């Protein structure tokens, strides 16, 4: 499976419930700004895939996740957001290199 396919399959499972948000250290450290939440990160990845959103416009959202995986324990659809973010970072860096 290529990176984009993994990102698509996993991000589609997100129902935007927000259960992951409250446990996220980066959301809490950034004064509860949604932009720094796991839900936002998954939404932006999905927007990149479905609406051509340029993920590099949200680079600090992607790179402020410390991959602690606390969100995984909360996610009712079982999304490993940390894994997803690592894939998205690779993709984003590849894109920057190409540009």
């Amino acid at each position, binding site marked *: 499976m290529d990176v984009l396919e993994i990102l698509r399959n996993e991000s589609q499972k997100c129902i*935007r419930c*927000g259960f992951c948000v*409250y446990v996220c250290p980066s959301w809490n450290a950034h004064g509860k700004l*949604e932009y720094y939440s796991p839900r936002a990160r998954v939404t*932006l990845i999905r927007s990149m895939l479905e609406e051509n959103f340029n993920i590099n416009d949200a680079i600090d959202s992607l790179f402020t996740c410390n991959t602690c995986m606390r969100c995984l324990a909360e996610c009712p659809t*079982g999304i490993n957001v940390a894994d997803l973010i690592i894939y998205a970072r690779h993709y984003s860096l590849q894109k920057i290199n190409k540009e």
Partner: protein
Amino acid sequence: MDKKIVDELARAVGRENIIMDEASMKIFEYGAVDSHKGTPDLIIHVTEREQVSKILKIAYNYSIPVVTRGSGSSVTGAVAPTKGGIVLDLRGLDKIKVNIDDGIVEAEVGATVLDVDNECKKYGFFFPPDPASARVATIGGALAENAGGMRGARYGVMRDWVLKIEVVLSDGTVTYFGESTYKNRAGYDLLGLIVGSEGTLAIITKAWLKIMPLPEKIVRIAGFFNTLDDAGEAIFRIRREGINPLILEFADKEGVEAANKVKGFSYPELPGGMVLVDVDGPKNGVDSIADRVIKIMQETHAAQIIRPETPSEMERIMDVRRVAFTAPGRLYPGFIDGDIAVPLSRIKEALIGVDKIRKKYNVFIATVGHAGDGNLHPNIGADPNNKEEWERAEKAAEEINLLAIELGGTVSAEHGIGKLKEDVLIKQFQVRGQMPMYKLMKEIKKIFDPKNILNPDKYALG
């Protein structure tokens, strides 16, 4: 949005609280699950209650739509800014103060229901309403949706637990509805009007809520059934025979399957699903009530009955019910929320009726619900990009709502109307002879919000 207005807002709330980047606009397009969306012009991260009045004065002056938002976990498109405008993120307002002497808790609206409950527990009390989304549902969102929850079988919905609210009216005026007393007959019940109004009449900034002492002991029992008929009979008999359960929940086979997969559990995946019951009371009295529940489950042919003993086992089985609600999300990119309630005696017919609709349209439906108060969530999963499949899903959703009306029930028990249920709400009003009430609702909206800036385009109010 005009730079002049943005500058005015920045002067009122601080430029650091105004968010306008493209990524954030994407993030705030939706609430949970459904497909309704809209792009805001800007988002304000509210950090002090006083800011809400300042923002509304400006919005009123320039007739700008304002969509108030807690955690955005509502499932009907209620927070989608379909007319653009300002989205207010109120999660920064999260102060909580427990007042045991008066039996109340004072909470700012951005605090979550779970945080409020946990704060009360420090004093040996609890906050009874407990939506399955309690960890994210804010007090403001729960009041504006009149949320229910697991303990609704005993304790009802948010309206039953709120005594007083601080509100900001559409022109920025701050006022209070209700009193922080357990009884109050001073004035029309405008507090009741705001509860369940989905941000269309006023913005709530603080609430005074009733609390209860924690029960001495809770016993949890889960029964797994071979047929929906048996599960429905068990639910009916538990209520009919005078047991007053704290929780009486249902999750069907699809829901249990999903929870097993996501959480790595191995609970029985049977065609009749799971009935989950909590009974509570004094330490030495509760076992006899639990025995009665077990006896009813045996008589209604439960294939397996589990009585978890440790707190972690109890939590695991409750997680099955919580995760079951989200089952369609794991399998399908699209999710249509179901939220019907029927008279208690007709729950079995509702369960079997939904199953027939599932077969008729060949769609994925996971039904969970607060069965103890007649509330079922038949949630549908489908792919919005597959036109034919999505149409079948929408037809099934409509038929489920019509089934609820036919059984003497309602199309919205606790999740509200938002965008998703606008058509079926009017249908229900028509069938029940409530069009004059609908007319009054529209008049009330005009009085509270003459410029139609508060969450416009929702609740079938235009």
